[in-house]
């Protein structure tokens, strides 16, 4: 049993508080840098689909700079707690592999390494962790997103509920061997595992160095006071918001295992500026379903919390302190975070999570102009599929990886046009986009086309991201397997306060003869030589009426080929002369 430290109260000055905050942030950034530079799979070293954080000994999130929001706002706490509950005898030198959505992880593809940090007497003081989306996690099919899996058994991922993977800083090779037997391209997984453990150990080393310099009591005092500071900042921010409530819904397209019209998520937002509390109620939603879309508790909570922070100034830290002012209600057994083992949560970080974040951020905008966001585009154009096959250039060596060729989807904000490459709501633009050249170098395929589409933006006072077109297929005499779980072919991103909706997602197979065949939402397809995948990413919704968009911006959009003159006139009420100048008189008439 790890000994409990005696809890003294040290009081820190404002300067030390600021200094230590930066130091902890720096630790997480350093961990992230190690992972990016040394990861082996494209999903880590190209797309940067990972996060790093520090949690307190009480399992509260302390710092997580530059992490993917959906990975860590809630979940860090739950995972660290599971580690302590399952292993009352944690020791220095331990590391734990955790990917169980039933024990706080986001979804099984997100392997997480937790390293508890100890003082010299063996008392547990903090936990650092690294979470990275794997190229493969041993699912029954070569994809990390099993949208149609009836349950965890059909899904097939090998589940690690905080399993000890290192003791005395050495691997427990039994666990490594299990992974090598069940995860495709095992040397790629092992390389990523090394990078993750390396990053976590660097985090541990840094925290220990801080403890040497400041003493544990100071660090613990920092935790307390930093949380209090963050809560104070959050209270100040909420007190500036209007009192109010709004209910919004969002519907995920059907996939096997859902009702024929898909899944509707209802979210109820309540701002109480007197008590300085924000409540997001997710209880009024269906029970878990026999598919892979069910949300883990971590993802459901985070999806709602993210939307809250979009209406809070960026200066308010996102940690356990500010989280005290947010209440996310979840119902046992519910698809939104209440599912139990063996419910499959294979796709929990993206599809349905976005169907929580999107209406929640839109609900804020319904309460007052200036708050919230329009909806972000739903995810999984086939340009973000998991590809696999054999590479004829390297003696048919097998490969599997998620590519990030083109996503867009950015929602319009109250005063700012969309951030183009937001990827999807839960990602918030943190992932990278692949270089065509690097992808073509690493995989036997060719990217024929990648471009942004005219007249596809979510119209509005501020605009949502346009749709992105991407076409790719195998090169040489080889097949290419592509798997994805698309949402948004039917239910696109909603605009808000009069803003237009985002473009729909579309995925096609281009036959050898050039003909296009629309592909279903949830697909695992093997392309033959000469065949191509064609993918249109989902656009984001607009904010506010398009006719209130500043005229010079509309003109710029036309000049730059984002929209046609016709759209400028029909949707935005801006007329241009043949030479391209604004026709002021006609524009006034159109906008009347």
């Amino acid at each position, binding site marked *: 049993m790890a000994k409990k430290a005696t809890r003294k109260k040290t009081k820190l000055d404002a300067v030390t508080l600021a200094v230590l905050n930066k130091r902890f942030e720096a630790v997480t950034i350093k961990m992230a840098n190690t992972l990016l530079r040394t990861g082996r799979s494209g999903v880590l070293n190209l797309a940067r689909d990972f996060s790093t954080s520090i949690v307190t000994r009480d399992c509260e999130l302390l710092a997580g700079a530059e992490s993917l929001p959906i990975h860590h706002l809630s979940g860090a706490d739950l995972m660290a707690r599971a580690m302590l509950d399952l292993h009352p005898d944690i020791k220095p030198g331990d590391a734990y592999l955790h990917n169980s959505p039933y024990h706080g992880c986001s979804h099984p593809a997100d392997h997480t390494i937790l390293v508890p940090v100890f003082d010299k007497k063996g008392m547990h003081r903090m936990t650092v962790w690294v979470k990275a989306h794997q190229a493969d996690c041993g699912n029954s099919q070569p994809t990390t997103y099993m949208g149609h899996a009836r349950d965890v058994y059909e899904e097939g991922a090998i589940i690690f509920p905080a399993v000890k993977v290192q003791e005395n800083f050495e691997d427990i090779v039994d666990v490594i061997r299990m992974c090598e037997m069940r995860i495709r391209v095992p040397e790629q997984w092992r390389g990523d595992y090394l990078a993750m453990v390396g990053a976590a150990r660097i985090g541990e080393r840094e925290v220990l160095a801080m403890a040497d310099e400041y003493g544990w009591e100071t660090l613990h005092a920092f935790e307390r006071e930093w949380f209090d500071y963050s809560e104070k900042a959050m209270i100040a921010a909420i007190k500036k918001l209007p009192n109010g409530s709004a209910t919004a819904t969002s519907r995920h397209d059907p996939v096997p295992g859902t009702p024929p019209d898909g899944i509707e998520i209802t979210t109820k937002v309540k701002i109480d500026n007197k008590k300085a509390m924000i409540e997001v109620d997710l209880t009024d939603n269906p029970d878990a379903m026999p598919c892979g879309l069910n949300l883990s508790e971590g993802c459901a909570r985070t999806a709602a919390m993210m939307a809250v922070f979009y209406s809070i100034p960026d200066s308010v830290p996102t940690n356990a302190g500010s989280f005290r002012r947010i209440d996310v209600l979840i119902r046992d057994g519910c698809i939104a975070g209440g599912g139990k083992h063996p419910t499959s949560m294979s796709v929990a970080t993206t599809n349905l999570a976005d169907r929580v974040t999107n209406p929640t951020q839109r609900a804020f905008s319904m309460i007052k102009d200036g708050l919230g966001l329009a909806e972000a585009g739903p995810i999984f154009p086939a340009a973000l599929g998991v590809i696999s096959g054999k590479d004829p250039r390297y003696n048919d060596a097998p490969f599997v990886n998620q590519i990030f060729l083109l996503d867009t989807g950015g929602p319009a*904000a109250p005063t700012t046009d969309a951030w183009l*490459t937001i990827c999807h709501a839960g990602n918030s633009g943190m992932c990278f986009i692949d270089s065509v050249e690097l992808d*073509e170098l690493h995989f036997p395929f060719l990217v024929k086309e990648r471009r942004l589409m005219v007249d596809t933006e979510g119209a509005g006072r501020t605009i949502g991201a346009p749709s992105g077109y991407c076409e790719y297929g195998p090169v040489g005499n080889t097949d290419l397997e592509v798997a994805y779980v698309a949402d948004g072919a039917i239910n696109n991103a909603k605009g808000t306060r009069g803003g237009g909706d985002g473009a729909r997602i579309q995925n096609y197979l281009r036959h050898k003869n050039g003909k296009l065949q629309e592909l279903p939402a949830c697909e695992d397809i093997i392309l033959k030589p000469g065949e191509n995948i064609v993918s249109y990413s989902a656009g984001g919704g607009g904010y506010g009426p398009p006719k209130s968009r500043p005229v010079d911006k509309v003109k710029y959009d036309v000049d730059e080929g984002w929209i046609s003159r016709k759209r400028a006139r029909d949707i935005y009420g801006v007329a241009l002369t043949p030479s391209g100048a604004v026709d002021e008189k006609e524009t006034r008439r159109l906008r009347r």
Partner: protein
Amino acid sequence: MRLACDTGGTFTDLVVEDDRGQVHMFKAATTPADPVTGILDSVDAAAAGLALTRAELLARSESFVHGTTHAINAIITGNTAKTAFLTTQGHPDILVIREGGRLEPFNFLVPFPKPYIPRALTFEVSGRIGADGKVTETLDEAQVIKVIAGLKRKKVEAVAVCLLWSTVNGAHEKQVGKLLEKHLPGVPYTLSHVLNPILREYRRASSTAIDASLKPMMSRYLGGLSDRLRETGFEGRLLMLTSKGGVMDFADLAEAPIHSIGSGPSMAPLAGRYFAQTDVGEDTAIIADTGGTTYDVSLVRRGVVPMTPETWIGQRYRGHIVGFPSVDVKSIGAGGGSIAWVDEGGLLHVGPQSAGAVPGPACYGRGGAEPTVTDASLVLGHIDPAFFLGGTMKLDAKRAETAIRDKVAKPLKMSLMDAASAILRLATENMVNAIEEITIHQGLDPRGTVLIGGGGAAGLNSVAIARRLGCSKVVIPELGATLSAAGALISDLHADFRALHYSSSTSFDMKGSNKVLSDLTKRCKAFIKGPGGGAKNSSIEYFAEAHYRSQIWEIDLPLRKGSFKTAADVARAREDFDAAHEEVFAYRDPDSEVQFVGWRAVARCRLAGKGLGNLARDFERSGSAAKSRKAYFAGKGSVSTKVYEFASMKSKPVKGPAIIESPFTTVVIDPGATARRTKSGSLVITP
């Protein structure tokens, strides 16, 4: 005689090395509308100081090394040429989509960056080359000629051409280049595979776009400066400082002006390295250049000036990537002008906002009401209000006190002195963070290293920074206030050649790799013979860009030799890689194959002598300085503090608390620290 001239935002610095090897510092106001005027003013100032005419001074100068922020300023203010972007058919949005990535996921107030070249000036060119260099679709010349006709109609002033896989097969780009010369004569263009043969199309396209957009104006600027210097009798060599920390002939730079983006700041590490070696015999040092608004830091390791593959104009992900390695100088918004403020939660911040030159710190009395680091130093008694910039500018201590009291002390319920001290401490902390990013984050422990403090404001808290980092020594060179110009005097002529060639530790292609290396050697030798002719000496360094199998971010691996002779040579390179990987990333993977992706050879030609001379005493302090004054130090309170004049200090150590002043800088020696002066004129402080 040699001249080194650095045009900064406020001042144009000129450092003159006379024929006896003594060095002289001069300053003139920068003239942004016509920077050449400011340069000639600085030449006049030097001529006056040395009792010569402008013509005499120039006629006697054998070289003129120039650093300027002209290129970067043009980019930042949007004054570059109207440039078109020619890209592969089907891939028009490379400059729009970029590589994704974002800072601050909850911040929706920052707009998505606009492409460096607008979409309206982007044109798709037929043809496609695959990853193996094979042409999968041919280039249709008629289509290209049509595109060029469009460029003419749009009155394009420069053209950037970046086609997919041109690094492996440049035929299509060359073809486009020829057509441009024929159908759009006189309009400068840049081909991506010629300028910057790197993988990753966004980076290469961004380099190409930036370079092409600078060509017209940099040709004009360099031509104009050259003409006006030559007119007045200058017959020596004209050299420009580059982002890579070397110099290039004006004519070569006009062909690839992108290399002048970091011209200036890139010299600080060179100068810093020199002083670390000269003054304390160290080859690893942290170099910090403190100006009014920015704090530039870099780390010299084992005598090697640090390079970064990721140079950005503006913020990472929000700005534009340069796509070239450059001297790794990290810049943060911190300096004498950084503003201190308290937020709603009661947390003190310093910067990144700066009071700038206008209105400036509160104590300047030019209408600034926000407390700054300079105000804090003044309140603490570290700066003498009567001797700022050698007494040419009087400071108002009362205004500084009011600003700090109202904006910091009262909200935090602190005394005035504690508040001023806290401002300095937090400014110190910001600077420490910047240094930690280039040290700790790169796996280097700053403890025990040397800190070189350059820039006019370096002396205010360098001792505090050094203590916080555990540095063993602080060096404040006497030339520190013009560190970049000083670096220019000792900079090398250089050329960097690079080739892609895959090889692996498990099946090493000895013949192929050696061929690439020997080609690089030939190019280096040609350079040494050509532009490097007459150099004092020259060298070639070799690097492999390598990673473990499936990693995609390379580590720069210095090679012991320029060829591989035996299997043992390969094994040694592999071991060196493991060691380098462990040093940076805390682990090695000896079971994994190591892949060598790119090869580089760097030719360096030393134009200058071995070192810098001492600073001549061209200025005498007017009026007598107080011998001591009250200064406040955290933990000690207000104590009587001795004041010394920098120029007349001898080698006898001075114990802190003390203040050492010159017309260019003020150096604070905290209690417990000691300072001595070296032969080169620098201060060496043991913090």
